[in-house]
């Protein structure tokens, strides 16, 4: 793989999608307002849960806010990259424009995963980081090298797991053509990531760890932030992320063999 070429192409992707989005100023403004209101709404909802309880599943309100911060960052990443690109796969397959992607001398998964960005998602990422910073001050978290490394590793793994889940569902479009409902179900499940895994019953904990590993996405990075992490959990998250990333690749290449292109 020619990294210089891919970097150049990605710079062009950034440039063209930013230019496309900036054509519609009002839309960006609405997206930005939605992001702010959504965060306020989520914190308000969390505060209602904690009105009569000091802790839920062993997590106090200030600690649960870390999960909210991580969720907001990940949701921002979803809205910046995954949502505009991966939902486009469905359109590409339905309309047959995937043909143009497959005939370009560039990795098709790279192309369809990163071609677009939604700049309003950046605000969510920034808001998430701000919330995390506030939480770190409130919870008096010490920043050192191991903290930085572990939080970076777990966050990257969370992004990969999230990407794998999205990409897997969107890839099935090659066979089923319409998978909007599955994407909506996934989005609904992802909301669960706003709450600590320990606040759910045992059965649900197993479900959200094994079948749809939402739990890994926010809870493990939050534990790292609070210094209550267990190494085996981090290693497990790394393993799950690797499996998701590799499977998404294999699954895409396998699915392409069944691609029949839309009729003219």
């Amino acid at each position, binding site marked *: 793989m020619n990294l210089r*070429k891919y970097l150049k192409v990605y710079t062009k992707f950034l440039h063209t999608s930013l230019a496309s989005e900036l*054509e519609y100023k009002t839309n960006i403004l609405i997206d930005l307002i939605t992001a702010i209101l959504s965060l306020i709404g989520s914190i308000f909802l969390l505060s209602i849960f904690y009105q009569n309880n000091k802790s839920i599943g062993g997590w106090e309100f200030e600690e649960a806010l870390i999960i909210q911060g991580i969720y907001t960052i990940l949701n921002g990443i979803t809205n910046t990259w995954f949502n505009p690109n991966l939902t486009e796969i469905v359109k590409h397959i339905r309309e047959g*424009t995937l043909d*143009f992607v497959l*005939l370009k001398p560039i990795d098709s998964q790279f192309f369809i995963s990163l071609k677009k960005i939604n700049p309003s998602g950046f605000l969510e990422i920034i808001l998430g980081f701000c919330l995390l910073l506030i939480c770190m001050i409130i919870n008096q978290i010490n920043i050192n090298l191991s903290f930085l490394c572990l939080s970076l590793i777990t966050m990257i793994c969370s992004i990969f797991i999230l990407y794998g889940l999205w990409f897997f569902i969107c890839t099935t479009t090659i066979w089923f053509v319409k998978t909007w409902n599955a994407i909506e179900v996934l989005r609904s499940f992802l909301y669960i990531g706003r709450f600590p895994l320990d606040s759910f019953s045992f059965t649900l904990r197993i479900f959200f760890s094994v079948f749809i590993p939402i739990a890994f996405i926010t809870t493990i990075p939050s534990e790292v932030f609070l210094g209550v992490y267990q190494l085996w959990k981090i290693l497990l998250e790394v393993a799950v992320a690797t499996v998701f990333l590799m499977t998404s690749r294999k699954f895409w290449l396998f699915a392409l063999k069944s691609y029949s292109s839309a009729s003219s």
Partner: protein
Amino acid sequence: MVKNIIDVRNLSKSFDISSKEPGLKGTIKHFFRRQTKSLKVIKDISFEIKEGEIVGFLGANGAGKTTILKMLCGLIYPSEGSILVSGYLPFRRKENFLKNITLIMGQKQQLIWDLPPIESFYLNASIYDLDKFEAKKRIKKLSEMLEIDEELFIPVRKLSLGQRMKSELLAALIHEPNILFLDEPTLGLDINAQRNLRKFLQKYNKETNATICLTSHYMKDITSLCKRVICVHEGEISYDGKLDLLLKKLSPVKEILVVCCSEKDAIKLENSGFTVKNKIKNEITIKIENNSFTSSLKTILNNFDIKDLYINEPPVDEIIGKILVKKSYDI
């Protein structure tokens, strides 16, 4: 000797197609127990295409033209048989193969809708690993050939269909491919835009010696661009050869309308042994076989007093229409 750039041997393709009975009952049945059957859309076809050739693929809707084109450019895996395009197995989609080909579809677009076409050109240039200087040079050259200038800087959504198609062509040709696959490139364009596009393709072929495989339902595209046609009927090749030979075979007779100086001359011509279609006063329509056309015309001009003469070529569309419904043609 010109080498073969495309070599297709015993190619077949089957698709699993689901069918549904009408009505609510059929819909429920279809939802729970979808019945699919394998449909062979391409049946054991073989052909070669030489470098620099322009070949037209003719056939009715659903005959399999686009499927053949998509297999040639590597989008669809063949079920049986072999394809070699420029020495590559297309479905492997190797980088060097992809740099050599392009696919243009009249009904689909790759340009970024909200931005001027120039942005898509530079994006494609970076994908094909062209530096900015080279990309600029090629955009200038192709835009001159396509006669587009200001349109390059207007958002795609504001362009007319003709301007958009020209921009699509530029985007698809920026890497200077050797093989062009064109699927109904003039679809929906007005007469002038169609003519300009054909003119461009002829020029591109002449200047670069690129091989062009074309499907179109506009017969003018085929007659003005392609010397050779491959007719596809229900997934099989019904004819592969020169277009003019096919036209001659399918239309062995020409009609001429002779306007004689007087009705007396018309009667004389009527009784001179020619096959007469009809006669109205001093106007007489005669059918003449293609192989004796010149000599018959000489006879008429030398022996009869003629005021005017019209040669009626049968419409190409009508002749091609006959091809689309017939299984095979031996010329």
